[in-house]
């Protein structure tokens, strides 16, 4: 299994390096393997395909990555999904940090403090392009949150939110939103009307199914495209799994 990621120093204004993404590939670009095939990239590719199937080629597809509770891995999934879409296609992808209550993505990408989505929604920043961060992949951009919002509940109901999303739709084929969890806060529920689809990230063996069910119901079962089961593990040793394969 590949080692954990390394976060390199990134200067302000510079392109966000690809290595910042938590692809978890090894030096040969292979992640966890199963039957000789890279497991993780394939999963994200499968996710990409499913989302693509749900989307319309002529219209930007806004997909929200959320979970029932904190710590399910939605930021990781959002990062890797956006990176996978950008890597595997020519489509323009924008990764938006819509978790207005913490700096998870900012800290993961090691981004310096800079104006972000919160500033735009609050009106302190008028130009959306000022907050868009470019990456090494030409078709992948990142819109960080910037800072923690003082009143996220107010911001998600702001009319500027719709404008932001509309603006981003015009310049992207896919918008991947890293959302707040559904049950602890109401941000995702409120925002779900702006989304074309929601992908629920569930950590295997951690989150009770009833909680996930409630989260799906809260978001709207028709909005939920599917589940990403994160952190799946088998306790059986590999030498024994061979006999059951």
């Amino acid at each position, binding site marked *: *299994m590949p*080692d*954990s*990621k*390394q976060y*390199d*120093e*990134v*200067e302000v*204004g*510079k*392109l966000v*390096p*690809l*290595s*910042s993404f938590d692809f*978890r*590939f*090894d*030096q*040969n670009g292979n992640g*966890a393997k199963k039957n000789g095939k890279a*497991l*993780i990239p394939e*999963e994200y590719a*499968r*996710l990409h395909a*499913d*989302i693509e199937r749900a989307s319309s080629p002529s219209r930007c597809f806004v997909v929200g990555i959320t979970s029932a509770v904190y710590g399910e891995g939605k930021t990781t*999934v959002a990062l890797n999904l956006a990176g996978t879409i950008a890597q595997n296609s020519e489509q323009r992808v924008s990764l938006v940090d819509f978790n207005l209550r913490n700096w998870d993505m900012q800290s993961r990408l090691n981004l310096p403090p800079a104006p972000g989505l919160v500033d735009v929604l609050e009106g302190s920043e008028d130009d959306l392009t000022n907050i868009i961060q470019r990456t*090494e992949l030409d078709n992948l951009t990142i819109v960080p949150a910037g800072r923690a919002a003082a009143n996220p509940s107010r911001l998600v109901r702001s009319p500027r939110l719709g404008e932001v999303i509309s603006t981003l739709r015009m310049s992207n084929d896919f918008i991947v939103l890293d959302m707040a969890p559904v049950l602890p806060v109401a941000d995702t529920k409120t925002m779900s009307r702006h989304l074309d689809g929601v*992908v*629920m990230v*569930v950590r*295997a*063996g*951690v*989150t*009770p*199914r*009833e909680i*996930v*069910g409630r989260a*799906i119901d809260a978001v709207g*079962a028709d909005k939920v*495209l*599917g*589940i*990403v*089961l*994160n*952190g*799946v*593990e*088998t*306790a*059986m*040793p590999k030498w*024994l799994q061979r006999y*059951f394969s």
Partner: protein
Amino acid sequence: MRIYGASPLFNYVELVFRCKRLFIVAILLGTVITSAVVFTRPSLYKAQMMVALVGNPEVDQAIGKAGKATKGGKMVAAADSIRKASRLTNIWLPRHPEFLKEVITLAEVNKGVKEEDMPALEAKVRKAFKVDKQLLNGQYMTVSITWADPVQAENLLNQLYARFAEKTVNDETFLDTTKRTQLESDFTKYDREANDLAAKKMRFTRENYNYNPTTYTALLGQLEAAKEEIIRQQTDLSEVGVRLARTKKLLLETPKTIPGGQDTESTIDDPKIKAAQDLDREKKQLEALQARYQPSHPAVIEQLKKTEAAQAAFDLAKTQKAEPVTKIERTRTVINDQWYELDKNRVQYEIQLNAQEDRLKNVRATLDKYEERVSKIPELQSQWVRINADVAFTNNIRQQLRARLADARIAEERNKLIVKGEVKQAIAPKAERQDTSAKLMLLYALGPILGLVVAFCFSLLAEALDHTLRTPVEVEKFLGKPVLAVLPKMQPAKGGKKALPGANKPSISS
């Protein structure tokens, strides 16, 4: 059951590995606990004995119990065995605590046990005994005991057998014993009665021996002799009376004293001389009287007094001075010998008369007694006959009872020996350790197996209580949504963050 894979076996194996720590701990714990329990528990020993409940057929035939040797007899023998065995299981062990208490006491199992703890010990021993209900070949009974001490186990079985044999013998010969006891009681009663009658006969004979018919004639002769004796005595009495009367008459006519001359005594005025002379005289007279009469004769007594007085005067005179000579003239009197002779005769006759009267009185009393005895002879005769008849009758009964009692005792002893021969210890008890090595190994192996089972149950319970989602199948089953991606769990980096080997290096570009 959670679905981890395609096959149920995969699911169970996955469950085991998922809860491997629980399994390891449970197996270890089960092993330790079982080992500790097996190691610390006291060893139990089992002793078993076999009791034969039928006798030797040849012996039975020899003593006349040939019926038991036949086919029908075999059924009787089997019934006897069942009866004997059932007494132990149905009566003595469950219903008679004193039986078990005796066994425990004789086996010395109750050493150091307080009286208030005895009921608990008895219950423990009763529970430890096991008697097989089924008899082997219809005649062998197996009794076993499981006990911590092998020596006590063997002792308990041996004492149980001993008491069982004794009680069986007593029960089987109960009728003989009852008969013998009754005969003993009757014999004692009639023996006492016969002895009483014999004593009564002896007493009767002793009191009334003169009334024995063989001495009746002698009694009559004695009666006649007594009568003749009375007549003779009366004659002698009359003769003595006549002599006494004549003597008294002569005595009245004869003077008692006669003059004997005059004595002129010229005494020296020395009183001593006179006193000595007086004394001498009196002594001489006394000697004369004593030679003639008895000491109790009045004359002798009187003379004795005089002699004493003279002696006293002489003693007094010795102290006095000599006095002038005086001349005393005295007229001397002497005892009439004839009078004294007559008096002596008188006394003798009186004595004879008294003696004769006494003799006559005795003979009269004897005569009266003889006459009374003779008058009672007819009544005593009938009593004698009755007493003799009673004695003979009672002796006869006693004789018969003695014979029957002897027979009953012999029969009882014989039957006891027979029954004793029918209750034998075919196989003596020998205590063996109940836990064999194989059993111990099995017990030790039981721990990990139990731990495995418990762990499996707990793991199933944990799985049932776990409502999280672990597999795509569960997601689709419970949430009804498709699984778009299954991301494996990544291991955290060792030693903190480090560069991805060969990963794209960050590039700084505007």
